[in-house]
């Protein structure tokens, strides 16, 4: 990859990372809230 770590490439990688981070964060929140609906 020739333009690796160029400002554009880094911006692309960071925006991909942010999307994935929000996705994981959402899953964490969902898991946390789901716990309150646990029934024996």
């Amino acid at each position: 990859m020739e333009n690796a770590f160029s400002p554009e490439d880094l911006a692309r990688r960071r925006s991909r990372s942010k999307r994935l981070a929000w996705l994981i964060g959402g899953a964490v929140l969902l898991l946390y809230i789901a716990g309150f609906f646990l029934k024996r």
Partner: protein
Amino acid sequence: MSTAIAHPGNPHDEHYPGGLMRWLTTTNHKDIGTMYLTFALMMFFVGGLMILAVRAELFQPGLQLMKPEFFNQLIGVHALVMIFAALMPAATGFANWMIPLMIGAPDMALPRLNNWGFWLLPPAAILLTMPFTLALFGIGDGAIATGWTFYAPLSVQGGMGVDFAILAVHILGISSIMGSINIIVTIFNMRAPGMTMMKLPLFAWGWLITAFLLIATLPVLAGAVTMLLTDRHFGTHFFNAAGGGDPILFQHLFWFFGHPEVYILLLPVWGLMPHVLSTFSRKPTYGYTAQVYSFIAIGVLSVVVWAHHIFTSGMPIPALVYFMFSTMSISIPLAVLFFCWIATMWRGAMTFETPMLFAIGFIVLFGIAGLTGLVLADVAADAQYHHSYFVVAHFHYALFAGGIMGVITGVYYWLPKWTGHMYSEKLGKLHFWLTVIAFNLTFIPQFFLGLAGMPRRIPDYALQFAEFNAISTIGAFILGFSQLIFAYNIWCCVRGGTKVEARVWEGAEGLEWELSSPPPHHSWEIPPVIR
């Protein structure tokens, strides 16, 4: 494993604030790694002092130094501090420092999240320990006295120390989740071109599995302690049998987090070991693929075995049998790891610098943790050993010999890379021998105490246990004070010493050794070439 052609690094003259503002506002992965590691070392001594007070009380039978309530508080906060404020931050410090260097990235993917994740830790540590101070001024009745497990109904009835601990655990959990998210996205998105997943250093693999375990289990712990909080203050009855709730439900929820937590503490160390063993054996790591799949297998198995911690709470026979065999099955991938570690050393040109000594000490002593873990996984045997000092000895072989000695291995291995100076080998070796001897002096007697029936978390005991307790206390004090050598060695190394080259160790392989020691402010501005 990856190799790289030489890369000069980039001595970037970055303008960043100096003094305190540098540390408050930094988004640099190395600065944040340093803060995590410094914080972990400080909390290691705080947690250590607490348990030395406990061991002093246990030196003789009878109550000498403290009331039983205070004894229980010290034990609970010792565990919480060591797990959440010492071992986990130390591993996160390693990840921050080393993962970008090892995968050829310029920094972590989300640097500001990284800074935030660290600065949540000090307030949480203050919350955990503050009830001790408040009690001195007559406010409240001290810290949490339930042990680190928060078991209901004791925790529902406990004093305000429980509320402080619940809040602290929420904050520590948020910090860990932020760190985990950052590590996952960094490994997925910031690798240098050509660094495929199966070329990823094993340390990064160990941390990747750890991060997923944290993501999967921390919300469950957070949910459980939030439910505890609402039981305490808002009239709910999640864990109150009188109101239709179930205290055993809390135990299940806690250990759904609690057992993977053991692997959360150990997987980063297991990832680090192959690097150290390969370096000082001057041989490539044996069984890279087998180790990766073992990490994954252990990660998966760790979330389906939790109830072996509560065999005695009452479970149907099929559940007991399932949890016994599933727990025992973890020994298969773990045995693969042990085999690979030993095979890496086999017929290597070994030398015994301090990191290698600690790595070998780790393998031997952690092996004892594994073997005694198999004993505890046996339903019939566990009925006798449960809640005894046998359990205490077992998990200290896992978490001190496995966790803390692993962290110490990593510090000695990477400290010259971080500081650009070599530490004192003489002091390092003295530290190793004192640690190993004192550790065994402390915990071997506890196996015998447990087998003879001494219960844990009790400040007084029958006369028959006196000798082993005295030996254990002497060992604990030698172990505690020998860690001052470690702190002094680090201090001297940070301040100065013999300069080291980029490749600190003759047999070291990997991208991190291609950069200068210490590495430039921005780690890899030009991506390394992976072969």
